């Protein structure tokens, strides 16, 4: 055994190396970072305000002055798309965070304690999943009233069972692992086993799923926006921008094209990244 020769590679670094090998995933990460940066700096880089109406400049086709053209209020679409990144990422991230927190908690409880609690929680998940998600979201928004925040809540709600089930099944399978048996054999308390062993080993598919769910959440938010159940004016939410412009498809297609592309690219970025993460983090694929 030659001690010097073997390098120490911490797992995260290894993970990064194998993620880095996946070109598409890196592209995805690039896209995501790109949009995050845009979201952060949009107030400084946007050439115009996202809400100032200049009626004299309505519906102008893309030009050097307005790269993506202007909308029916004479607002610069490029600037609005930039600001829109904030909204979409914000909704995507926080709605998923909400579902992850609630879903994971329920999933762990169901998976670890089993029996009655499990049956109850699983049934609720079953029922929720049996509803078409967009209808459920519409219903939630209908109850709470349409606003960006409520759309976010609705999206979070409809995604809870996905995470719940995932975590539950992970917990159930991790529970069977020999190292959990080993942990019990050491005389560990349940709580410790749960927190130190089961949770960390159940979480990586959740991270993967969460990345992919952000993608879906962005689309869902846009869909709600499109149905008029999301962001309120003058918030430059991409889906709402589409909804506001859908009548201009023949005479001002740019008002639709760019927000649509922005949604697609962002979502694509998260999907690519999620795919890459899955390869790296999902232990099923490892070894």
């Amino acid at each position: 055994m030659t001690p010097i020769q073997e390098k120490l590679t911490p797992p995260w670094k290894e993970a990064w190396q194998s993620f880095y090998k996946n070109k598409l995933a890196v592209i995805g990460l690039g896209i995501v970072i790109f949009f995050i940066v845009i979201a952060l700096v949009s107030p400084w880089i946007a050439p115009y305000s996202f809400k100032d109406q200049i009626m004299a400049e309505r519906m102008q086709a893309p030009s050097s002055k307005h790269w993506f053209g202007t909308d029916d209020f004479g607002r610069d679409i490029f600037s609005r798309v930039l600001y829109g990144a904030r909204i979409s990422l914000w909704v995507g991230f926080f709605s998923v965070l909400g579902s992850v927190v609630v879903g994971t908690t329920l999933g762990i409880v169901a998976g670890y304690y089993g029996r009655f609690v499990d049956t109850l929680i699983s049934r609720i998940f079953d029922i929720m999943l049996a509803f078409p998600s967009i209808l459920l979201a519409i219903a939630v928004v209908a109850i709470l009233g349409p606003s960006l925040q409520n759309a976010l809540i609705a999206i979070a709600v409809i995604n809870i069972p996905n995470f719940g089930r995932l975590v539950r099944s992970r917990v159930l399978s991790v529970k069977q692992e020999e190292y959990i048996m080993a942990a019990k054999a050491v005389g560990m308390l349940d709580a410790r086993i749960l927190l130190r062993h089961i949770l960390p080993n159940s979480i990586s598919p959740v991270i993967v799923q969460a990345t992919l769910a952000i993608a879906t959440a962005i689309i869902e938010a846009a869909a709600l926006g499109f149905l008029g159940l999301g962001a309120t004016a003058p918030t430059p939410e991409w889906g709402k921008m589409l909804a506001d412009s859908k009548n201009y498809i023949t005479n001002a297609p740019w008002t639709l094209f760019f927000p649509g592309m922005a949604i697609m690219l962002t979502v694509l970025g998260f999907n690519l990244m999620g795919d890459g993460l899955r390869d790296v983090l999902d232990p099923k694929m490892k070894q």
Partner: protein
Amino acid sequence: MLTYTARRIFSLIPVLLGMTLIVFAIIHAIPGNPAQVILGQRATEQAIAEVTKQLGLDKPWYIQYFDYLNNLIHGDLGNSLRTRGPINEEIWPYLTATAELTIVAMFIAIVIGVNAGIISAWFSKSWFDYVAMVLALIGVSMPIFWLGLMEQWVFSIELNWLPTTGRENVRDPITAITNFYLIDTLLQGRMDHFITAVKHLVMPSAALATIPMAIIARMTRATMLEVMKSDYIRTARAKGLRMFWVVYKHSLKNAIIPVLTVIGLQTGLLLGGAILTETIFSWPGIGRYLYDAITFRDYPVIQSGILIIAAIFVLINLIVDLLYVLVDPRIKYSK
């Protein structure tokens, strides 16, 4: 198998019951009084109070719920508040219209998705694999309402290849028998109508098929790759079996189980997700019907519509589960 099916159907009852309760709770939590909608902008306060009473909406919700359940048990979904028609009858054309759209979309998604997935896995890392998978990723990243609009713009307006909306040429209408126009037109031996029906189906079903197709392709590829690594595939090859049969017989049958799950889930999602497609393409389907019912506070319709969709969804997944048993003898449910 039979007992298993019976048992599964039996065990659906609590789910469906739970669903009715939740639907009930949700729609009663939604603010807005159907009486207001019925009476419209011209409503007076007394009129609204009166209508509310006539509709039985002033009773406590649990009484309403039991009334509803009671009717449900007798196979009666109630009457629409808006049209007064019995929902049992009213919902059928919507349901079949959506069913036709969904089935065609799902058919496209499965045929193309599964095969693309198989070929990608078979020739993994080939250019086909890369192209197909990047396309699939773009597919899942596509907001379908946007896709639908863009489709219309390109194929209907610019190229003038396909009709924009609807199910038929209203000037030369199709006579409904089953309300599945593809079937009806063939039954009537009207090839011209059949072609019209197909042309109307192309864009909405393509829009609707995009996401499930992409998901199925990805799933098929992933499970095929996994399966093709397995020992029994090696055994099959060691027998001297042609790769084609190795792939389409031995691998596919094994890979299809997770794909079936996805197909089941996606079909259910399509049913509900048709709202957007149906809006854009003016497809007289259940999604649109429900959406209108929600804006109209047509409680019985919302309730029954969601319940039916959910029941179909649950049923599809039951069928999927039963298919598992057919495909995989290891799943011994009847144990």
